[in-house]
């Protein structure tokens, strides 16, 4: 299944965008919630502070829930019971006695009623801002005063210096320690805050979803724009065919990020075109090389048949035809070897004793060398490679034949095989004219001739070195040339050697 980069890109984009939008909305929500709570808490703080300051005016025994100091003798009835409805003082005999407030005791302390009524929040009951309620407990746990307190409120325990804020149900409450061990609880319903926050959260979610949708739509459009140049590159690449290899991606119109890709593709197209050109030139050259001996055979036969000839003339004509036919056969053989090597060479990969294969091939060439008056010397050290013995023998034969063909009269040829580290090295050295530097890069090309006139006369097919190179490269090796005009040439073949034989019991070294 073809995976879409565009879809994956968009998915990642969606994930990141969701994270960003969600995180931002979450942060905003918590900030707003904290601000709203701070507002409520500030109101509760103010209320608690006002209650606390009112409590400071109370005599300590009232706050501690202890008996007041013995009252002075007095007249009058028992103290009136008082308190808000629903509030039952657990100590009916409590409170300052009216007789207590005598002028003879200095400044008259505020009356209990006054104190109790001052212990309240600003504003009339029921209309207090935010429907505040509160309760004040004495140190012994008894309720001093409670206003609008929800009935199920437990007795709070305040720790001095540590105001406690909490939610009870939907109410926000603050518990602080008042003077004399009292506990003050101030609370207010926070339903409006909660519902406001919920509405805010929904608005945030809606906005976030809208932003996400717009972002994804934009991302889809942007990704289409991003993939447009890739589509253009695809288009160009699809126009490249065997008929038209010259098309190239215009790197000037491609975005910076794709210039590398365009460059790589153009380079590949260039190599492809060069390979096709080489192939076309090779085909033309091969056809030329085949047509020439064919022309000799045909025209010689036509000429000979055009009139009566002497037996000598017929014989000479047939020799000419035979030489041309042999040349064609050599050429066809070479072309086949080359195409086989191009196709990866022989599949045979067996241990080959390079020194033996080389010795055999050199012996086959020896009559040719001696016929040319050349001295042929060898120096073989045993080395084994993985490969095809026939192909490697052909490499040796081609190099030695070459060395014979281009040697000077009375010259010599030296063939060596040795191991150099992990490589087997075959060296063929001649004492010929040498090859000028400018031809070094080309001598391994098919049908390349350093000196056309000379090689025509000596009868080479122009394929020997190309075949050698193809076979060596099919063996994972390299072939190289060292030569200077007038100093002869040295061809080196390097092929990866098989690991050295473990024991000396294998073959006798130095086989010649």
């Amino acid at each position: 299944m073809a995976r879409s980069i565009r879809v994956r890109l968009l998915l990642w984009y969606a994930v990141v965008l969701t994270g960003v939008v969600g995180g931002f909305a979450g942060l905003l929500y918590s900030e707003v919630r904290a601000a709203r709570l701070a507002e409520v808490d500030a109101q509760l703080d103010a209320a608690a502070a006002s209650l606390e300051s009112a409590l400071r005016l109370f005599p300590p025994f009232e706050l501690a829930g202890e008996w007041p100091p013995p009252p002075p003798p007095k007249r009058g009835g028992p103290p009136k019971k008082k308190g808000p409805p629903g509030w039952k003082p657990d100590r009916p005999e409590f409170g300052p006695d009216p007789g207590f407030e005598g002028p003879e005791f200095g400044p008259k302390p505020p009356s209990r009623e006054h104190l109790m009524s001052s212990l309240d929040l600003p504003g009339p009951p029921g209309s207090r801002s935010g429907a505040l309620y509160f309760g004040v407990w004495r140190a012994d746990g008894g309720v001093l005063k409670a206003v609008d307190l929800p009935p199920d409120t437990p007795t709070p325990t305040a720790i001095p210096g540590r105001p406690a804020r909490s939610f009870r149900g939907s109410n926000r409450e603050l518990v602080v320690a008042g003077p004399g061990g009292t506990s003050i609880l101030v609370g207010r319903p926070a339903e409006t805050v909660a519902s406001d926050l919920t509405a805010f959260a929904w608005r945030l979610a809606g906005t976030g979803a809208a932003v996400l949708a717009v972002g994804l739509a934009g991302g889809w459009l942007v990704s289409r724009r991003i993939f447009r140049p890739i589509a253009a590159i695809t288009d160009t690449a699809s126009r490249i065919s065997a008929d038209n290899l010259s098309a190239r991606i215009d790197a000037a119109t491609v975005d910076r990020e794709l210039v590398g890709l365009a460059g790589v593709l153009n380079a590949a197209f260039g190599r492809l075109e060069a390979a096709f050109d080489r192939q076309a030139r090779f085909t033309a050259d091969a056809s030329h090389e085949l047509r020439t001996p064919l022309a000799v055979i045909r025209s010689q036969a036509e000429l000979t048949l055009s009139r009566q000839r002497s037996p000598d003339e017929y014989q000479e004509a047939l020799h000419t035809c035979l030489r041309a036919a042999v040349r064609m056969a050599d050429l066809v053989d070479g072309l086949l070897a080359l195409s086989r090597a191009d196709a990866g060479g022989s599949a045979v990969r067996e241990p080959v004793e390079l020194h033996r294969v080389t010795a055999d091939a050199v012996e086959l060439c020896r009559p040719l060398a001696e016929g040319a008056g050349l001295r042929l010397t060898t120096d073989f050290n045993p080395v084994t490679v993985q490969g095809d013995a026939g192909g490697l023998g052909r490499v040796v034969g081609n190099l030695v034949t070459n060395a014979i063909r281009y040697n000077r009269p009375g010259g010599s040829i030296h063939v060596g095989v040795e191991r150099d580290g992990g490589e087997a090295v075959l060296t063929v050295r001649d004492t010929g004219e040498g090859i000028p530097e400018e031809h070094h890069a080309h001598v391994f090309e098919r049908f390349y001739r350093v000196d056309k006139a000379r090689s025509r006369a000596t009868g080479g097919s122009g394929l020997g070195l190309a075949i050698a190179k193809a076979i060596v490269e099919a063996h994972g090796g390299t072939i190289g040339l060292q030569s200077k005009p007038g100093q002869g040439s040295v061809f080196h073949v390097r092929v990866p050697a098989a690991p050295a034989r473990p024991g000396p019991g294998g073959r006798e070294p130095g086989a010649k």
Partner: protein
Amino acid sequence: MRVLVIEDEPELRRVLAQALREDGYAVDQAADGPDGLFKATAWAYDLVLLDLMLPGLDGLELLQRLRREKHTPVLVLTARDAVPDRIRGLDVGADDYVVKPFNLAEVLARVRALIRRAAGRGDSTIVVGDVEIDTARRAVARAGEPVGLTAREYAILELLALRLGKVVTKTEIYDHIFDETDDTLSNLIEVHVSNIRKKLGRDLIETRRGMGYVVHG
């Protein structure tokens, strides 16, 4: 008629030269580009047979340089048969184009046609008075009766007949009839002319003293 064969393949060059000689041409040979260009510019050939793939100097390059100096008819012989190659060869100045491997008889016919055309003649038969010269068959007849001429006699007659009304010097005859390997004395031309006169009548070839010979149409 004298022809230059520029071909680097020795066997093919030899076969072509032999075939042309057997057809009565004087044939020179060149094995590479520079030698071919030198000979083609130095001598007055009636035709050049040119291979395109030559060592030393490419055939097309040779043709271009030759065309700066001479208008010798050039028949290109090549193994390159692609249409662009042919077009290029003809554009550069080749008069005809034959692809290897060729039919030898066809090449010889084209050689004749090119030489004839260069002389400004369309057909292969030249008629002078009651003498009829068939250049295709290399046969001569007088009043409808075939007349046997030697190869040299025929070559001289054909040369003069192709330049009808023009004076041809002995040097020119020498240049066109003998190739570089011949070592014939020039006075032999006079012997050949006298033999032709014996066979075809005294008036056919007129001698211009100190200048040469002319055949009047």
